[in-house]
């Protein structure tokens, strides 16, 4: 079976969630890989949410908010942009391709854009392959156990002063 990316979307209520609804009303089809979480404003989206999503199993995270200048709460989207830029900058240190997170401005009228963004992002993540932080962590730590060597016998610190 081919790899189906898992994508978490964080959508602002006023523009992007509405835009995503519009895609539905217009019956525009897009790939079912995204699971969206509604927040009031893209300014509410904490980078920790994104880390959490990546940790729990997301292969990509989409953040969507109102276009610059159109924020329902005036400037929340600029804060989202700054947090996003900064998070993108540090992701490589975690060994994560910064392309796994994406910020898009989707207006309430842009149902088609939302669908395109999801499709495009899904493909991009598909190309990047699975991320698998949680399983990966177990896998990476599988050797981090107390070894039992050939000598078998009682281990420990008879002479060992730590």
């Amino acid at each position, binding site marked *: 079976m081919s790899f189906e990316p898992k994508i978490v979307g964080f959508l602002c209520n006023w523009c992007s969630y509405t835009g995503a*609804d519009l895609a539905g009303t217009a019956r525009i*089809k897009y790939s079912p890989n995204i699971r969206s*979480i509604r927040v009031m404003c893209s*300014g*509410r989206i904490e980078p920790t949410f994104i880390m959490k999503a990546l940790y729990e199993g997301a292969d990509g995270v989409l953040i969507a908010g109102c276009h610059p200048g159109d924020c329902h709460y005036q*400037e929340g989207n600029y804060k989202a942009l700054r947090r996003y830029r900064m998070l993108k900058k540090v992701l490589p240190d975690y060994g994560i391709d910064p392309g796994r997170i994406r910020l898009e401005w989707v207006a309430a009228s842009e149902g088609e854009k939302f669908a395109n963004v999801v499709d495009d992002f899904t493909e991009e993540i598909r190309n990047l392959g699975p991320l698998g932080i949680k399983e990966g962590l177990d896998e990476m730590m599988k050797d981090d156990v107390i070894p039992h060597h050939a000598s078998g016998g009682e281990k420990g610190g008879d002479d060992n002063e730590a």
Partner: protein
Amino acid sequence: MSVRIGVYLCHCGANIAGKVDIDAVADFARGLENVTLVKDYKFMCSDPGQALIQKDLENKLVDRVVVASCSPLMHENTFRKTVERGGLNPYLFTMTNIREQCSWVHIDSDRTTEKAKDLVAASVRRAFLLEPLTKKEVPINPRTLVIGGGIAGIQAALDLAEAGKEVVLVEKEPSIGGHMAKFDKTFPTLDCSACILTPRMVSVGQHSNIELMSYAEVEDVGGYVGNFNIRVRKKARYVDSELCNGCGACWSKCPSSRVPRKGNVHEKLSLGPTTSIYMPFMQAVPAIPVIDRDTCLYFKNDSGACGICAKECERGAIKYDMTDEIVEFEVGNIIIAAGFKTFDPAKVKRYGYGRFDNVMTALEFEVMNCASGSTGGNILMADGSEPKSIGIVHCVGSRDSHYNEHCSRVCCMYSLKYAHLIKEKTDAEVYQFYIDMRCFGKGYEEFYDRLLSEDVRFVRGKVAEISKVPVTETEEGKLVVSVEDTLLGTVRRIPLDMVVLSTGLEGSETLPEIAKLCSVSVGKDGFLIEKHPKLGPVSTATDGVFVVGGCQSPKDIPDTVAQASAASSAVLSMITREKIEIEAATSEVDEDKCSGCKLCNTLCPYQAVKFDEEKEVSVVNEALCKGCGTCVAGCPSGAISAKHYEDRQIFAEIEGIFSGGL
């Protein structure tokens, strides 16, 4: 204490059930932690559907409700009320969107069902952590502030005043009237602008429910819907309005001019006197002159060398020592009618405005046509002679990515109006250079039709440039317009005596400041953003603040007046309610955690987060807070939380999404 979550799945006829395997989702939901009851129904939003939920709540079968159906933007309120009727706090309910963002948008049925399961699981986890919230109510002050005294503000103020409500109308110019007071005729009916506007201006000046503050600016807006605190600066007019009777003796002898001299007949294209003490136009309301401090000799010389107006005034109304006055008052609602400004065509160098005589802006041309203007309404070239040919260039500063993307909506029509006036007053040939004729209002197309019959020359093409370089003899001494006649596919050079630039409309210079004061957003196009482009055209994201007229988008007089009346009725509806519920899902500061770093203080667009100097912590004014949560994400210590969108609730949702093994 155990939590009992009820999950209600809606089929929405075949809308959801046709794609999502409801039984599979129901089985899945039954297996989720804390879920004690799962029901599905054909139409959950129908009366029997709602009754289903209500009954379960009344029978105390569940104490948290998850409804998986359409978008919360559609029916969240419906179900909140249902839940409330069932005796549960409405915030202990959450909604899962398995229609707009699920069944309607995906093709593969299995994968759509899987997605629905994940979304339900997320909602169930979220529901487990929901907290009850209480909505608060605040009283509404019945007085209203109207910012801007153009036709929009005048209409809104009069509507409210007539309904018996008090209004404070603040206008930054010395007189109300706005742009409309500068117009000669109005399209398409060609009725006299002054004739229809003046009576209304007078009504505003005389109405007992309207307090008019002209030559004044709003400096500060505090508070929140129903209870705004306003501070206004009334600029010094240097004329005592109690004593002045508007006789005009002062300006008739004033030796200095506030309008720069051009040295030709176009120099005095202004209504009213051009002296330093002046009335903007003769029908001004209030009919009290103002001294322009920048050009007045008395102020310029410091020594008080002039003082002629004071000597001329028999009533002693001239007060050079007058100072600005600050007034503070409270209102319940605000209507912003701050108007527009016209595009400055000097930016388009190739049209030669400011370099060539006889290239003028629409507004200058408008004033020239006004009977009370300095040419007495005659259309004249700079040298005083009558033009033989006039070109009208559309879309100057509109529909152009370099300046403004938007269509200014009124230029086509006023350009047609000018063509008509030119035909009526002179023998000149008139050329209209247009990209598209947009004549969409009532009677507009008919007016276009009429102009076609009046032999106006229509050239479809945006003017490439206006030059004074003659190529043929007939071009000598003329303004030469180069344009492609796109319908013919030919480039034409047309020599003209005069060119009128139909400049587009932009938000006024003061708009960003006003928007900031009132916590309203300015869009990319420079105009204020309404709450919803279709369904909330006059309200804004800030409760109690409304927008009307040219500051919301370019519009003609009929639309402006209609919008003004819409806003005043919206305000009346607010006032009649007497009280208003405010958002319950606000931010909240845990004062035990807040360490007063002040990082959050700049983040709130509504200034709802302020630092309490006494407690040394930041506090949220819940009446101002809109619940966007920007401060929450900006708080480093986790002291601020967003009610109903708490970190732990969103974390739970994320965990839920992956709990089913997507």
